[in-house]
């Protein structure tokens, strides 16, 4: 345990590396949005796009968005944990280097090797391309994931061991003494630490499971006689994928816990219910993944029932650590100052909370039977990302550059924010409407009856891109300005 004197010697957040990472992430997010725009335009018959290229773009968009969401979440986690524990700086550079190596391998696999098996790399699809891509391209894609997985494990190893050492084990960092009535809120770790510890645990487990199925798939690529049980592989992949993308949002919410108090003048402390909710999140995030497999009738019935029940239950702690927590906090706060950063962070919490509703609806077996392979599901996760995680990431970026003077939301900032919210809302609503009309997802070519929805969505996608481009531009100018100061 460190006393306050030794605490003063802590190096503090690794601001330069994190700013650089967020710049890279902002540019990649913009590129991925352009890929999404192109796909929706192709589905709306506004442009001609070769179906093979559509699936390559779909793969790049999926892998790129999930990866970048993870990257921004990890950067946020690393930055704010640097306030509380002394982190080894080299680890973040190793993380970033391995991550970029993974990106190069994935992009090479897709745009040189022609890999188009979607970000989910569902076994045995990587090995069964029907001649569209080669074994080496699939291997490069999987190795790219492995590099990114190792990067995350390395980062979590450093964060985890420091939190465990400084806060009295995993239980201490998760505020279990407070949960069990043995400690006080004053002694409890801050909300950011509780969130970081929980995400470190469940995303480490998720990444390890993902690494196992990746290694098995790699062996299968070159030695097809080594076959993995396809149902087991699907379970492992969806466990990994579900946990990883959720972890990116749970890491990003750390920015809300740390930054919003600067705007209200009121510290955000860990309460007992907050700590209980995070421990439940830790369990539910890992237990809820069978709701992705409700159409796999060969799954044991108990696991599908669990998928539905936990889908319902998981919404409760999720809302407790996000919307409810924020609303209760803001009610107790003295006043809230609004600028682009705080607006985006609050939007992120709102979007995340709203985005959970379509997921809970899709988690019902009777609904899932007809809705899961429609655009309803992209509607859910695009709300989670555009109006949730990515909004929080942009909010963090705006805070990074605007720290000295919080500028009011007006003029350029207001235009960017409005374009982003309007575009994001319209774009995701079109997915939900299309899903309700049974428009299938992941189809390169759409029937004439579905074209109008895609065309409207394309317009909203353009608005999202305009808003995001303005954020990135604002960030670039802000970086330049802060470098000159």
């Amino acid at each position, binding site marked *: 345990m460190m006393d306050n004197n030794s605490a003063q010697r802590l190096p503090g957040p690794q601001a330069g590396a994190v700013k650089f990472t967020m710049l890279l992430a902002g540019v990649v997010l913009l590129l991925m949005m352009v890929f999404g725009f192109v796909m929706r335009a192709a589905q709306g018959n506004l442009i001609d796009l070769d179906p093979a290229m559509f699936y390559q773009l779909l793969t790049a968009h999926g892998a790129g968005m999930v990866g970048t969401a993870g990257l921004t979440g990890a950067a946020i986690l690393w930055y704010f944990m640097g306030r509380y*524990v002394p982190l080894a700086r080299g680890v973040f550079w190793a993380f970033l280097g391995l991550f970029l190596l993974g990106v190069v391998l994935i992009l090479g696999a897709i745009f040189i090797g022609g890999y188009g098996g979607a970000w989910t790399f569902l076994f045995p699809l990587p090995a069964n391309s029907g001649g569209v891509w080669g074994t080496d391209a699939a291997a490069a894609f999987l190795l790219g994931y492995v590099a990114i997985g190792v990067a995350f494990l390395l980062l979590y190893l450093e964060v985890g061991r420091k939190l465990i050492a400084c806060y*009295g084990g995993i*239980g201490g960092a998760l505020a*279990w003494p407070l949960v069990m009535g043995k400690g006080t809120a*004053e*002694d409890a770790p801050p909300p950011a630490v509780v969130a970081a510890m929980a995400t470190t645990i469940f995303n480490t487990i998720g990444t390890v499971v993902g690494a*196992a199925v990746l290694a098995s798939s790699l062996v299968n690529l070159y030695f097809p006689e080594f076959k993995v049980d396809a149902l087991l592989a699907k379970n492992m992949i969806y466990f990994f994928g579900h946990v990883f993308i959720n972890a990116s949002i749970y890491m990003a919410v750390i920015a809300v816990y740390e930054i919003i108090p600067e705007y209200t003048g009121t*510290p955000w402390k860990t309460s007992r219910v907050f700590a209980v909710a995070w421990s439940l999140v830790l369990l539910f995030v890992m237990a809820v993944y069978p709701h992705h497999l409700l159409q796999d009738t060969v799954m044991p019935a108990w696991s599908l029932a669990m998928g539905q029940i936990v889908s319902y239950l998981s919404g409760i702690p999720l809302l407790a*650590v996000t919307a409810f927590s924020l609303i209760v906090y803001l009610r107790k706060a*003295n006043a809230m100052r609004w600028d682009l950063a705080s607006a985006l962070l609050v939007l992120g919490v709102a979007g995340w909370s709203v985005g959970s509703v379509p997921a809970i609806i899709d988690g019902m077996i009777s609904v899932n039977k007809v809705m899961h392979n429609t655009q309803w599901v992209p509607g859910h996760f695009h709300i989670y990302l555009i109006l949730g995680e990515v909004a929080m990431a942009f909010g963090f970026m705006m805070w990074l550059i605007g720290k000295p003077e919080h500028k009011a939301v007006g003029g350029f900032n207001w235009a960017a924010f409005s374009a982003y919210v309007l575009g994001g809302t319209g774009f995701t609503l079109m997915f939900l409407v299309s899903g309700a009309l049974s428009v299938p997802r992941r189809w390169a070519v759409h029937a004439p009856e579905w074209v109008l929805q895609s065309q409207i969505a394309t317009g909203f996608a353009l608005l999202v891109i305009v808003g995001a481009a303005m954020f990135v531009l604002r960030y670039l100018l802000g970086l330049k300005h802060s470098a000159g100061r």
Partner: protein
Amino acid sequence: MKRRLRPGLAAIIMFACILGNRALEADPVLHVLVQLPMLGLCGALLAPRREWRWAQGGFAPLLAALFGIAFWMLPRSIDGAVSFPVMTLAKFLSVPLIGALLVIGWRQAHALLRGFLKAQAISMAGFMAFLFTHSPVRLCNNYLIDDQWRLGHGFLFLAIGLAMAWTIPLLTNARPRPSPRTRAKPITPVQSGVSA
């Protein structure tokens, strides 16, 4: 354990491994998951307790040990140790050396490297489990396919056991501690977030 007892214990283990070699080699689970770790333990017990300059940071001894372990992870090497006396001799000489190198390196390794190696050990045990349980052919001439599957399951239990052994202690020492770093500007002490 008292230092003077270490050579004696190492000698007992070594003799047990030599005398029981036939019996241990007859079963791949005993051969790979009992005899090899015991030989490694012999080396670990005999490793000099001093800090070497060449072993700074633990990189050189740990890297050498990892290459050695990688060699003895190959089914071909295990098969050779049963079939050829030269390989048997190599096993009795090299595995204790690997154990000694692991201890020397471990003592001087950074905590981050130790954590990485623990994760690597669990994942490699899991991978060996996959290899031995999913291989459609016998990987060793000396062992039947059923033995191979048993070995695979042994590796799976090893991976689970190591994961539990290394993570459960991290859960059990929860106790209230003040935050190691207070904020630069603590503001009014209002209990916020979800109220208790």
